[in-house]
């Protein structure tokens, strides 16, 4: 069972109070994009054993979307951050590097 801190409310939310939103930081490709780009946006997902970035919505609460970084193997949560960004904050990446040296996820490390 995951417990994530909502960056807006500051409360520790149980997984059952949240709605999962899948992988974080996707780039949306729509009309005008190539077939490969659209396929990547629609279907291609990371499936890491280790560091992962996800979107969650505090559905039984403030209703806001936020991002979370966690380890898919140990379920350790590295941190959460607001959704108004296209990449994980540097501070959080530093925290992850201390705990999982050499990690990488898509283009981030």
């Amino acid at each position: 069972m995951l417990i994530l801190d909502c960056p807006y409310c500051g409360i520790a939310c149980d997984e059952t109070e949240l709605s999962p939103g899948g992988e974080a930081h996707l780039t949306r490709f729509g009309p005008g994009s190539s077939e490969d780009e659209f396929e990547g946006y629609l279907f291609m997902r990371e499936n890491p054993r280790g560091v992962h970035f996800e979107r969650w919505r505090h559905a039984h609460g403030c209703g806001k979307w936020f991002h979370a970084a966690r380890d898919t193997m140990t379920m350790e949560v590295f941190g959460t951050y607001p959704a108004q960004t296209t990449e994980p904050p540097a501070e959080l990446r530093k925290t992850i590097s201390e705990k999982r040296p050499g990690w990488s996820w898509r283009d981030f490390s």
Partner: protein
Amino acid sequence: MSDRISALPGAASSGSIRVEEAGLQGMVTIRGDLGDKGVSDALKKVVGLTVPEKGQRGAGDGMALLWMSPDELMLTAAHSEAPDLVTKLGDALSGHHHLVCNVSDARAVFRLTGEGAAIRDALAKLTPADLRPSALPVGMVRRTRLAQVAAAVWFEDEGTATVVCFRSVAAYVFGLLANASKPGAEVGYFR
């Protein structure tokens, strides 16, 4: 015009705590940029209360402002005053991006009274929220889940808690609360 009635008039149960449907309660949803001084000044003028801190409830003379999300407040007042407050708030907030809506009849309110520890025990059976007095002290509002439905919970004092849920699930929530506080079903965790 037809008479207004609450979701479960007179519903009450007595067990480890007393659960009562609180009757008609005025509730106004206010959305806007809470950090905007124009918005907070308008609220102060109409309601007489300052915008509560994150997760808090600020109570005044018969009214209270509850922090619901970074851009949403709930104003509780007498049921009959709610329509008037919506008009006044709408006027005071004109010029600022906002939404003010009377949601009184969309909700059901339950009052839980008794020993604080027993109230926390009963609620803890239904919600994943941390109910320790340090995590949910008097003055804090916790929006969460009671069994399968959304609800908000706060303590007015250590012996009185209020639960708000959608009106359509009022009977379900009353059943949950009554069952969780049945005599003989005490947990004693918070005692």
